[in-house]
């Protein structure tokens, strides 16, 4: 009996000693609690785990390695409080209500995708938490005029205008379109129709398809028969790849082949092979050549996640949003009203260039078009931000 007590107290003493040693100086400052919900399971996962959550993790790690997040000059460690939203809008909304309403975290980071952001945007406003959304495209979201909500990506109007300008400048006369049947597809479709007016480019066919589609070849075959100069797809990652593979399969190879979410992913060149991806256009806005900061971010991301590259569109915007948030907290601490005002009224310097908000919309980043060239997704339009020259005639699928 007595020996066991001795042993126990010895263990306790050791543990206490170890605990004292293990407490680093920075942990004495209370952590900054940053909450978010993101898809780790379900249909949104493919996008969320490429464009968004890895960036949150990298950001927290980098800040903590540098001694913590600077809160008005005081370094405090970041504590991430995160939940799986299971790709469900209701779960997402409930989680943010919990994070902001009962957990009362210091800051929140947004969920993935237009639909989820659309659902949580009003909450952000009600609770007064600034949201810098990296993956939301919606004109309607901007029209809601929510003062705490900021959208980092270029919106449908500038993106489709850039696309149409590029097509027009390179002599395209006709286009065929497919778009996914949800908020993202519908808004881009509407914006494209406006952008096409007076451009001299006719839409020879437009068809919608449901999310999760497994076969687009009947549509692509009929498009091939009409022989348009350009193919435009407002698509999500699995459909982007499906449309590309099936275009190759049916021998549909227009001069301009444009698809949307997922073209900027490393996955695209892995699945299509770099030679197969050559000349494919898509939604992208930066790469490692865009700025020194972009290169440093690209390298740090690739290193931390074992060779997994950030995508060349939303990931860059996500990181830019985290840069803005970091600067805001350094300047104004955790006063969320002050952070909101700072975000709304400042021209921010980020890895993807200047960002400035008019209402909720980022109006400083121009609409862009990117293209796969030799295994890199190069920004090719407009020329002011291009990292390479456009190849105006896509080579045959390989």
């Amino acid at each position, binding site marked *: 009996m007595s020996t066991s007590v001795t042993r126990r107290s010895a263990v306790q003493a050791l543990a206490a000693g170890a605990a004292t040693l293990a407490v680093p100086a920075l942990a004495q400052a209370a952590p900054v609690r940053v909450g978010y919900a993101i898809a780790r399971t379900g249909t949104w996962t493919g996008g969320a785990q490429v464009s968004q959550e890895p960036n949150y993790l990298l950001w927290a790690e980098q800040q903590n390695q540098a001694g913590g997040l600077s809160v008005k000059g005081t370094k405090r460690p970041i504590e991430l409080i995160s939940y799986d939203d299971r790709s469900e809008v209701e779960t997402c909304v409930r989680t943010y209500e919990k994070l902001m309403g009962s957990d009362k975290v210091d800051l929140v980071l947004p969920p993935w995708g237009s639909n989820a952001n659309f659902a949580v945007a009003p909450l952000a406003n009600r609770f007064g938490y600034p949201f810098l959304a990296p993956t939301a495209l919606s004109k309607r979201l901007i029209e809601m005029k929510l003062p705490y909500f900021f959208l980092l990506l270029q919106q449908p109007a500038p993106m489709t205008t850039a696309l149409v300008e590029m097509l027009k400048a390179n002599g395209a006369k006709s286009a065929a379109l497919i778009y996914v049947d949800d908020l993202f597809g519908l808004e881009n479709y509407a914006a494209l129709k406006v952008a096409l007016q007076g451009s001299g480019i006719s839409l020879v066919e437009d068809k919608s398809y449901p999310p999760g589609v497994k*076969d687009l070849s009947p549509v692509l075959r009929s498009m091939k028969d009409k022989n348009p100069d350009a193919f435009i797809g407002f698509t999500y990652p699995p459909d982007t790849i499906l449309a590309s593979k099936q275009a190759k399969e049916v021998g549909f190879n227009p001069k301009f082949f444009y698809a949307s979410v997922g073209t900027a992913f490393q996955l695209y060149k892995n*699945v299509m092979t770099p030679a197969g991806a050559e000349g494919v256009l898509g939604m992208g806005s930066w790469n490692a050549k865009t700025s020194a900061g972009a290169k440093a971010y690209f390298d740090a991301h690739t290193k931390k996640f074992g060779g997994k590259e950030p995508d060349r569109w939303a990931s860059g915007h996500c990181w830019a949003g985290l840069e803005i948030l970091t600067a805001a907290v350094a300047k104004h601490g955790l006063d969320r009203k002050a952070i909101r005002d700072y975000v709304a009224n400042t021209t921010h310097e980020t890895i993807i260039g200047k960002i400035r908000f008019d209402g909720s919309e980022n109006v400083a980043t121009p609409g862009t078009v990117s293209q796969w060239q030799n295994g890199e997704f190069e920004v090719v339009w407009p020329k002011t931000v291009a990292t390479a020259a456009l190849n105006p005639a896509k080579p045959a699928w390989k």
Partner: protein
Amino acid sequence: MSAGAWLELIASGLITGGIYALVALGLNLQYGLMRILNIAHGEFLMVGAYLTWMAQTSFGLHPLAMVPVSFALLMALGLVVHRLCFKRLAATSPDLDVFEARGLMVAFGLMFLVQNAVSWIWGGDLRGYDFATAPVHIGNAQFAGNKLIVFALALLFALALIVLLRQTLYGKGVRALMQSPVGAQLVGIDTERLHPLMFGLGLGLSGVAGCLLSMAYTISPAMGEPYTVTALIVITLGGFGSMSGALAGGLLLGVIEALGMHFSNPSLKALLSYSVFIAVLLLRPKGLFAK
């Protein structure tokens, strides 16, 4: 439309339909023969797809070499799952209806378990690889090589299963089991062995389907569920327990969808599939091909 275009359209429908049939076969064995409504069928298919993807990208194995491997691995997994779950359920359930209800609950649990295990092991990213995507010309039409391989193998497996059930003593035993479990036992059919074996075979087939699908599509942990739903439609079309019905039902659904998509809009695909489904349930509730 030219004759060549019609050929292409119908053939692309048949190819998709062949995939539907293959996915439905395994579930049909489990539900049609054994009344195990394995809602997790698509999840096991997803495991087969991930195994193939991993073997291809990490070890450079040829995807076709993974067809027998994923069949064997998933079959073994099926035997284990049967022993752990369904054997006990069969022993403790008072009648077949209770067994079916309890089995459904267990299958739901398996669905979450498998999906989360795969997310945990491989992460939630979309995955895929390039395999035989070069187009193959047949007459005036052209198709992706991988789709033709998938179609050929789907047909092969479906026919093999049909022959197995029709022509062999084993098959007769299985059909007897389906008609009357007690009667089958009375005439000396070893249901204790046949039950797990058929469940394992069903899972093995889902593994093959997953392996084949990974050659043509991107894969993710959430990919399984839509296939389970399609499989349920197909086996309802073809009649529960009828393998040739599942094959014909799958092909039919593929062709209807392809034609519908061409002449209307892909967004109406779900409407079409479910219209066919409801019409069959109303007009021929035992399946299109029931005798």
